[in-house]
């Protein structure tokens, strides 16, 4: 993705925008978020790492937040853009609450709002550098959707961002089925997160699992996954290696 770093406005229609800059590259990023629908709602998992390039700089970043009464938002990508999105949503939910008319924004509505925001920013060449997962339950309907920085959005029974797309989704395609119990859902998510922990270099072994049901949102305390490094192939990885090139 090439964003031209010049300060001159590209087309004359924009006018003097030479004082403003556009997002060129992300600085502090979060890695994958994985989520799936289960019997009572949505389960979502994300680790608590904020990477500064290749350094795992921040290890207690909460990348999943409840939105209003019915939704849960998980984000990967630039953390500061995620915080900005949370501010937009906070105002959205506040104004929705102030109507005090017995209605409230559901996950589908919030997902649509986010899609509009992300797509419009992308069209101005100033994206919010995130991949967002939005899940929730309202009036018995479970909803799970995803939208990313270029505005691509869809809903599905299980979604993942970043590396999760490549490592977690194949597992979910094999093993997800309708009406997973809570325990099975968590086990499945942990399986995905474990693979990501082994293989994604920006993953940290400190994760949270969030669940949202009709009753509300619960985000677990951070915990670690058990890992196994005693595979014989790892004990002496260089043995049998044939020279160098």
């Amino acid at each position, binding site marked *: 993705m090439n964003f031209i770093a010049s300060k001159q406005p590209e087309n004359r229609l924009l006018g003097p925008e030479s004082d403003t800059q556009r997002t060129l590259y992300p600085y502090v990023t979060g890695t994958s978020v994985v989520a799936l629908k289960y019997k009572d709602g949505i389960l979502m998992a994300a680790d608590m790492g904020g990477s500064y390039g290749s350094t795992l700089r921040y290890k207690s970043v909460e990348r999943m937040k409840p939105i209003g009464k019915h939704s849960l938002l998980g984000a990967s990508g630039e953390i500061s853009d995620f915080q900005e999105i949370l*501010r937009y949503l906070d*105002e959205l939910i*506040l*104004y929705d*609450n*102030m109507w*005090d008319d017995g209605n409230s924004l559901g996950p589908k509505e919030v997902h649509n709002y986010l899609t509009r925001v992300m797509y419009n920013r992308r069209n101005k060449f100033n994206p919010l550098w995130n991949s967002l997962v939005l899940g929730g339950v309202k009036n018995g309907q479970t909803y799970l959707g995803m939208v990313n920085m270029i505005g691509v959005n869809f809903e599905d029974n299980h979604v993942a961002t970043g590396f999760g797309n490549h490592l977690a989704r194949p597992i979910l395609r094999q093993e997800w089925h309708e009406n997973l119990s809570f325990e099975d859902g968590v086990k499945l998510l942990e399986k995905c997160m474990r693979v990501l922990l082994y293989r994604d270099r920006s993953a940290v072994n400190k994760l949270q699992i969030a669940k949202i049901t009709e009753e509300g949102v619960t985000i677990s305390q951070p915990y670690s996954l058990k890992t196994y490094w005693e595979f014989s192939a790892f004990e002496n990885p260089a043995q049998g290696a044939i020279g160098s090139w």
Partner: protein
Amino acid sequence: MSSIGTGYDLSVTTFSPDGRVFQIEYAAKAVDNSGTVIGIKCKDGIVMGVEKLIASKMMLTGSNRRIHSVHRHSGMAVAGLAADGRQIVARAKSEATNYESVYGEPIPVKELAERIASYVHLCTLYWWLRPFGCGVILGGYDRDGPQLYMVEPSGISYRYFGAAMGKGKQAAKTEIEKLKLSEMTCRDGVIEVAKIIYKVHDEAKDKAFELEMSWVCDESKQQHQKVPDDLLEEAKVAARAALEEMDAD
């Protein structure tokens, strides 16, 4: 109190020889003609109530809200010209969200009252603007506890523990003064406000009315919201009973 301000009442930028600005006083009359609005500060929160005079039987109950939330922790009850009131509420909402985005905390109620009063006063300074024909009672709960302010069309704002505007304001004020507010919880406050509104409602002059109430208190987790339906019903029943008791005497 009415005096003809011949010649001195044509513009809000004109003082009369005895130092009054008549346009502002006329604006206050618009507030006096509307249904009664009451606010009280109880020991754990604020309760506000409005006597919504029903103009037509076709109106849906629950519509034409007179009490609006301005932020999570505060709300406003409007008396007077409803359209003017909408403008004040919009401005208050915008001030509140702006404060929060700059300072990171919910706007203190005192600050909000000052900003609204400033805005209302602004419209009394220029000849091309007319004063707002409405007054507001602002109730909120912040770090300093529950607070109640009233802003009049002149731009004056004071902090109160009991305030009333509209047709029955004199009678309502007398009733409020009888209450022991510092010992009352909001639950009881709701019942009392309902009783007062039913009492000051003039059956002869105005036919039907709808009671609208809101509160912000510890029980509502310091959020401004409509009084829950069951409590509202309880209040209405108690108020009607109290009226009948009075009539029976």
